[in-house]
């Protein structure tokens, strides 16, 4: 080899990949493609009416629901149940979670209890709740509250545990009162964890809505879906499921907004 004139070649690029980049519109495109496929399939007949409802029929059913005023008749009780149940469960969950995070005695006493009730399918307790809280709104609030309570507790005390200890040390070194430390350091420090726990809790609340409306609900999105299932009315079933999805998306977007407001210090 000629030492004075070595061959020069570009260094081979080995980096790249493993870095998710946001691609706008792809999600919407996939949605659109799936719906278009279902529409085409049901129209041409290679997907039978028994397998999937025609998307345009679902839309029509939805429109009917809206124009007949039944939409609000179903939506309002459901939203009330979600709001009241989740508010009860989440606020109790945050209080208990913070108490577990702060007090060793509460932690020793309640962590095993929470671990024991976490895996219970709350639906299984519905008949019991009916006896305790009545077949009307009480049992529905209780089911949703109970379902959101445990994940909120676990997320909250995890978040409190994860608050940077040096910040607490700092508070103590400046002679801040215990209450100030909790209010100004522990709670804001735990807020990101609590909010991401809230995402899970509220999704669970929506899932439990259908279960809560299994017993004795005349109106409600869950009742509507159950009725559509019993009638094997796929259009109504899908219309109801889409409403639940939309509620989920709205809740998630609201939480995103809340996060941006409360956690504007992050980025």
């Amino acid at each position: 080899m000629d030492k004075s004139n070595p061959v020069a070649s570009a260094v081979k690029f080995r980096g790249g990949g493993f870095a998710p980049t946001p691609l706008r519109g792809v999600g919407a495109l996939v949605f659109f493609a799936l719906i278009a496929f279902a529409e085409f399939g049901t129209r041409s007949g290679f997907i039978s009416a028994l397998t999937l409802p025609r998307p345009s029929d679902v839309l029509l059913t939805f429109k009917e629901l809206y124009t007949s005023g039944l939409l609000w008749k179903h939506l309002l009780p459901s939203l009330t149940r979600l709001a009241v149940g989740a508010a009860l469960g989440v606020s109790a969950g945050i209080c208990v979670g913070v108490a577990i995070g702060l007090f060793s005695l509460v932690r020793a006493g309640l962590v095993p209890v929470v671990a024991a009730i976490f895996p219970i399918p709350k639906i299984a307790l519905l008949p019991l709740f009916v006896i305790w809280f009545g077949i009307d709104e009480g049992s529905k609030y209780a089911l949703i509250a109970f379902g959101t309570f445990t994940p909120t507790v676990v997320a909250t005390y995890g978040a409190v545990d994860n608050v940077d200890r040096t910040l607490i040390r700092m508070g103590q070194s400046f002679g801040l009162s215990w209450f100030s430390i909790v209010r100004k350091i522990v709670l804001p420090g735990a807020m990101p964890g609590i909010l991401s726990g809230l995402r899970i809790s509220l999704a669970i609340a929506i899932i439990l809505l259908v279960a809560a409306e299994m017993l004795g609900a005349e109106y409600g999105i869950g009742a509507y879906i159950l009725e559509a299932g019993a009638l094997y009315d796929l259009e109504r079933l899908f219309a109801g499921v889409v409403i639940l999805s939309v509620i989920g998306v709205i809740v998630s977007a609201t939480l995103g907004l809340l996060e941006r407001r409360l956690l504007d210090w992050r980025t």
Partner: protein
Amino acid sequence: MSNLINRRTVLKLMGGTLAAPFVLKHAGAANRKIKVGALRFTSHSASFVAFERGYFADAGLDVELKFFQAAQPMAVAIASGDIDYAVTAISGGLISLAQKDAIRVIGGALSEEAGIDGQKILASDAAYQDGVTTPSALDGKSFGMSTAGSSFHYMGSRIAAQEGVEMKFKPLQKVGAIIGALKSGQIDAWSIVPHIAKPLAGSGAVHIIGNVSDYLPDYQVTTVFTSRKNALEEREMSEAFLNAFSQGIDDYTAAMIDKTADEDAMVDLIHKYVYADRERAKAAPSIINGTMRLNKGAALNMASVTDQLAWFQSENLVDSDISIDQLVDASYVDITGQ
């Protein structure tokens, strides 16, 4: 159904090809393997009798009984091709599946008949003490049902209409949940077959305040149904099934209603399927209490079926343009009530 994308269909076809040499041995109409859906209720006795006494086998059918917890999944199982024949009440779901060309009603089974104990109207103890001693006092009360569009919904509505009262209908999904709600006074009233109604009333927690037959005298409670494909393309097999089923009905009626056959032997037979977890002595009264009329020859009361369809349509529970022909294939059995 032939255009349905169905993994199971494909698998069945593949399995069929592979198993072909063995199938050839049992060729012909004889020993057709079929599955019959049933609930563990006395109202399904005809299937049990036809199975136990070999009437199905005599008809060349190799029957496997498939048990379900509720009527609704049974209708869906017919639609999905998992079972071939079943007996269940007419509900909104059944009509909806018929509209989608998944199923057809081909015969009748349980009927209300004057003079034979039929379904009972029940009131909770609280409501009873409150003055609900007859169905006419049900105004403003709540009535239990499994779901909207169930047979309970139909019965309750018809009773309310004839009494001129307004009731609130509470969906509770399962019979067990309805019983619990009625016993604890969470709902005020319900209607149910006698073998469930009588023991409940006996305990004092609920009271019988009337008979469904007073309001719906010839109510066709349950029907025999199958897939549309079986009804249209498997005529021989469907007729064979209905024949055997009718023999079962005859035996049941002779023993339990006409008392011309051995009642004890019949109770023994039914006890193998119904209340099997209780001892014979305890099960027997319930089985006897549950006796209702099963239509001779699986005849179908078309007037009742038409009325039911009309009611489901008027309540907007099913499409208003479903015709009775989409629901019923009237070519198999005697049609009554017309």
